[in-house]
């Protein structure tokens, strides 16, 4: 198990390396650079050159990469050009904000959608199934940013139940912090319900056709015992993988939701850094996102044998 985990992490090294090189090269292809951006219309060629030298951007790209990579190996992701903050703590701080939204939303969505999906599969082609699938498809079809805007309009502006935009750290003010997170979480939650429900239904349908379900029924088990003890656990594998994918994707990319609700999360940090050409932050974020993705997938794979003992972690 441990060896498997280590192997997987080692195997992700080339992927992460490719990510680093690609990101490093790519962002330097983007027109505009942090020095001229900082100087704006005041820039003279001399002052730009000065600033670039100070930021270490006057060296060739391979040399810059070498320096950056060397520091990376020492665990130092550098310093933001804009805010002068160390990149890693900055990323972790922002990541925590995004992560609490994503984790809560996906956990809630799974809690609702998985049973609902199993139920829909069990009642396949009944009106219950059809309406559950219809709702799921509808939720899936609403873009998160629009859903966010609608929630904002309704709960924030119309009913004035919830704060419109902004963010307060839960550590600072738990109640306010939670209230600020309600709408972003709700937005993601509603969207992911659609995704997860459909998957849970499809994989349960797959399983319900199999002989061991009939076998379980032939033993005289009740329908609910058949469904939960036999169908659910076996059907959950693909759904679990999907949840992992969703998590992996969301942890790096709720920039849109963060924009709607002005939450200073990781996605927003990355987008802002791209606009500000804050190279160290972009590099750090991208690498972090890729690493998170790899890690989430690893955890998902490590957990998979729980649902399917045929898959051993080797």
């Amino acid at each position, binding site marked *: 198990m441990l060896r498997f985990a280590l192997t997987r992490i080692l195997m992700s090294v080339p992927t992460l390396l490719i990510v680093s090189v690609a990101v490093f090269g790519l962002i330097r292809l983007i027109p505009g650079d942090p020095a001229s951006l900082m100087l704006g219309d005041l820039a003279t060629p001399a002052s730009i050159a000065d600033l670039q030298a100070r930021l270490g951007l006057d060296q060739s790209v391979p040399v810059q990469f070498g320096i950056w990579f060397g520091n990376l190996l020492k665990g130092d992701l550098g310093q933001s050009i804009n805010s002068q903050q160390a990149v890693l703590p900055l990323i972790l701080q922002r990541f925590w904000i995004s992560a609490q939204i994503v984790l809560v939303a996906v956990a809630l969505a799974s809690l609702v959608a998985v049973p609902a999906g199993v139920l829909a599969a069990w009642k396949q082609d009944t009106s219950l199934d059809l309406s559950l699938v219809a709702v799921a*498809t509808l939720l899936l079809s*609403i873009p998160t*940013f629009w859903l966010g805007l609608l929630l904002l309009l309704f709960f924030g502006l119309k009913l004035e139940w919830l704060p419109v935009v902004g963010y307060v750290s839960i550590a600072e003010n738990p109640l306010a912090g939670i209230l600020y997170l309600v709408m972003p979480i709700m937005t993601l939650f509603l969207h992911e319900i659609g995704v997860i429900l459909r998957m849970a239904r499809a994989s349960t*349908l*797959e399983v319900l056709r199999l002989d061991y379900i009939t076998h379980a029924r032939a033993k005289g088990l009740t329908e609910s015992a058949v469904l939960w003890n036999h169908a659910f656990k076996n059907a959950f594998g693909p759904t679990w993988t999907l949840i992992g994918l969703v998590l992996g994707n969301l942890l790096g990319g709720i920039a849109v939701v963060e924009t709607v609700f002005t939450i200073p999360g990781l996605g927003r940090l990355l987008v802002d850094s791209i606009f500000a050409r804050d190279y160290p932050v972009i590099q750090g974020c991208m690498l972090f996102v890729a690493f998170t993705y790899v890690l989430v997938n690893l955890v998902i794979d490590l957990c998979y044998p729980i649902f399917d003992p045929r898959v051993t972690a080797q």
Partner: protein
Amino acid sequence: MRLPAPNALVGGTLIGFLAIVASVSALWTPYDPLRLSFRAKLAAPSAMHWLGTDEFGRDVLSRLMAGAATSVWISLLTVALAVSLGTVIGLFSGYVRGWVDRTIMAFNDALLAFPGILLALGLLAVVGANKYGIILALGIAYAPSVARIVRGTVLSLREREFISASRVMGNSEAFTMLRHILPNCIAPLTVLATSMFGWVLLAESSLSFLGLGVPPPAPTWGNMLAGSRPYIGQAVWLGIFPGLCISLTLLGINLLGDALRDKLDPRMRGAR
């Protein structure tokens, strides 16, 4: 003659309507979608402007119609690009196998480790945010998932006996690839392309929202929606209608995709 499945019916109707609106907009819209009217800024829906006007006094309905065409066109081209790019890579990778395949897939996985939208965001910043930049960026961003699926299909098809049959016949690997493997990738690709159309539509809107979408003034649903945000308190209609259009289109796509998958992959329907 059997009635089509309800999801195909609803989905088809929605997408058909979209196609009609998109075509009609090329010939006629109630107003010029780009014409400014300083006297009619942020006018609420009325008999004159059914869906109101925006912050420049432009007719929202006309812009929605024109936006449909742009959005459809961008999505189609992007899907075409992603599918062809991904198919070529996937076919090649599945065909050569060995270390070349592993290298290509390592790259592919590296790309997949990013949420598509972030990848597109980065690429877009490089190629520039315009219609073709978006198509290129999103095409490249979505190609890896196509490549993965094509490669998977190729690898699983290789195990099928008709591929062995082709080789026993004496057909070259390349011929087998093009004559037998490629055509059989079409079914999964069709399903994928359908849902990808929806993703692209969504991604294009999201990019606009993040400030890098199809540049205004040419309307797309995405940039209309994104542009409505400052006016959410005063002019609700600016955000409601484009969002509704995107949602209904996505709904149509999803339903159509489901119907298509049911047809092409009846296994998914489950127990008979």
